[in-house]
C-alpha cells in the first residue's frame, strides 16, 4: 500500500494535534479543554459543514446521483447494525450487542469532517450532498438497535416510549443543527455563503484542529476502559470499520460515485457514533454497559479511522477507480 498517503495524512495539523492530545493524557499533563468549549467547537463544525453542503447542493440540484447516493446511505445505515448485531451476539448479550451495533451503524461527523479536510488537501472534489448523506445516516441505526432489543429479549415489561425514541433519534442536537444548517445553506445560496465565508470557511480548519486536540484527550482517557472490553471487542472495533468501508466502496463503485464522494461514503460506513447513539442508548437500553460502546467507538475506531482508515480507504479508491 502507498504509505505516503498515511504519512501525508499524519503530517497534517489536525491529526498531529490529535496525537498531541493523546500524548498529554499518556504523560499525565494537566492539559484540558474546559467544558463547554469542545461543545462550542462541535456546534460550529456541524453548522459550518451543513451550511457549506447546503450551498453546494443548491448549485448541483437534486439529480439522479443525489438520489442514488442518499438511497445507498439509508440502506447502509439500516443494514450495518443488522449484521454487526449478529456478529456481536456471538460473544455478548442482546443489550450490549444491540447498543454496539447501533453505535457502528451510525456515523461520526468529526471523522467525516476530517476526511473532507483530507480531500481538500489532496485537491479532490466532493459534492455538497454528501452532507445530506451524513445527516441521513445518523439516526436509523438507533431505531434498528431498539427493534433488535425488542425482538431478542423476552422482557415483557419493556415498552419503548417510541415517540420519545424517534424524538431523540431524529431531533437530537447534532442531526437537527446539521439538517437545519443544510436547509439554510440551500435557502441563502451563494449570497449567504459570501457573507458567512470568513467565519464558516476561514476558521474551519483551525477549529477542526483545536477540536481534534480535545478529541485526542478524550480518546486517550478512554483507553484504560479497553481493558474491560476485551480482545474481541477491540478487534471488532478495527476490523468492522474496514469491512464496512469495503462494502461502502463496492456500493460507491457500483453507482458510479466520483472518487471524493466515494471516500466520504466509505468513511461514513466505517465510522461509529460516540455522541448521539450512546446518549440514546443510555436512555432506551440502560441494561447495556456504556463503557463498552463508548470506549470502542471513541478510543479505537475513531483514532483508527482518522489515522489509518481515511488514507487506507483512499488507497482502495485509487485502486478501484483507476
Amino acid at each position: 500500500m502507498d504509505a505516503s498517503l498515511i504519512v501525508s495524512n499524519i503530517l497534517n495539523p489536525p491529526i498531529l494535534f490529535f496525537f498531541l492530545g493523546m500524548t498529554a493524557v499518556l504523560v499525565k499533563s494537566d492539559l484540558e479543554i474546559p467544558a463547554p468549549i469542545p461543545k462550542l467547537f462541535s456546534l460550529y463544525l456541524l453548522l459550518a459543514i451543513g451550511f457549506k453542503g447546503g450551498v453546494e447542493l443548491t448549485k448541483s440540484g437534486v439529480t439522479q446521483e443525489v438520489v442514488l447516493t442518499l438511497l445507498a446511505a439509508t440502506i447502509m445505515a439500516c443494514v450495518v447494525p443488522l449484521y454487526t448485531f449478529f456478529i456481536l451476539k456471538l460473544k455478548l448479550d442482546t443489550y450490549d450487542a444491540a447498543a454496539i451495533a447501533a453505535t457502528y451503524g451510525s456515523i461520526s461527523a468529526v471523522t467525516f469532517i476530517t476526511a473532507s479536510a483530507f480531500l481538500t488537501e489532496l485537491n479532490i472534489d466532493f459534492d455538497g450532498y454528501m452532507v445530506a448523506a451524513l445527516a441521513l445516516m445518523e439516526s436509523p441505526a438507533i431505531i434498528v438497535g431498539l427493534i433488535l432489543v425488542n425482538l431478542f429479549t423476552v422482557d415483557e415489561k419493556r415498552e419503548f416510549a417510541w415517540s420519545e425514541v424517534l424524538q431523540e433519534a431524529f431531533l437530537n442536537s447534532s442531526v437537527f443543527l446539521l439538517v437545519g444548517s443544510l436547509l439554510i445553506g440551500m435557502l441563502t445560496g451563494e449570497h449567504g455563503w459570501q457573507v458567512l465565508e470568513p467565519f464558516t470557511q476561514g476558521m474551519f480548519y483551525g477549529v477542526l484542529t483545536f477540536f481534534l486536540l480535545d478529541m485526542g484527550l478524550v480518546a486517550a482517557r478512554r483507553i484504560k476502559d479497553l481493558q474491560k472490553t476485551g480482545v474481541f471487542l477491540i478487534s471488532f472495533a478495527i476490523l468492522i470499520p474496514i469491512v464496512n468501508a469495503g462494502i461502502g466502496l463496492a456500493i460507491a463503485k457500483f453507482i458510479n460515485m466520483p472518487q471524493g464522494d466515494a471516500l466520504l461514503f466509505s468513511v461514513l460506513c466505517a465510522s461509529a457514533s460516540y455522541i448521539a447513539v450512546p446518549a440514546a442508548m443510555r436512555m432506551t437500553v440502560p441494561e447495556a454497559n456504556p463503557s463498552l460502546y463508548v470506549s470502542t467507538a471513541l478510543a479505537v475506531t475513531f483514532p483508527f479511522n482518522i489515522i489509518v482508515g481515511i488514507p487506507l480507504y483512499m488507497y482502495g479508491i485509487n485502486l478501484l477507480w483507476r
Partner: protein
Amino acid sequence: MHLVKRIEIIANSFELSKILDSLNKSGVHGHAVIRNVAGQGLREGTEDLDMTMLDNVYIIAFCMPDQLKGVVENVRPLLNKFGGTCYISDVMEIRSVKCIASL
C-alpha cells in the same frame, strides 16, 4: 424556623426532566439544579462531560415532611432503571415571605 426535608439526588443529566416531573407530580415544585457534576466515574474514565452525555446533575429540593413518601415512590423507580442516588436529611427553614408561597 420549622423543620423541612432536604432531598438530594445525583443522576445522569438525561434523567433530569424525568426526575423534575416526578418531583412536580409529588407536589414538590421548588428545586435547584447544578449541572456538570463529575461523578464516581471521574476516576474511571466517564467524566467526558458534554462530549458523551455522561455528566451528572445534582438536584436539591426542600419539601414538607409529609410530601416525602410521594417523592420516594415516584423517584425510586427512575433511579433503579437509569442509575443515580437519592438521600434525605433534616433541615430548618428560615421562613421568608417567598418561601411560604413556594411550599
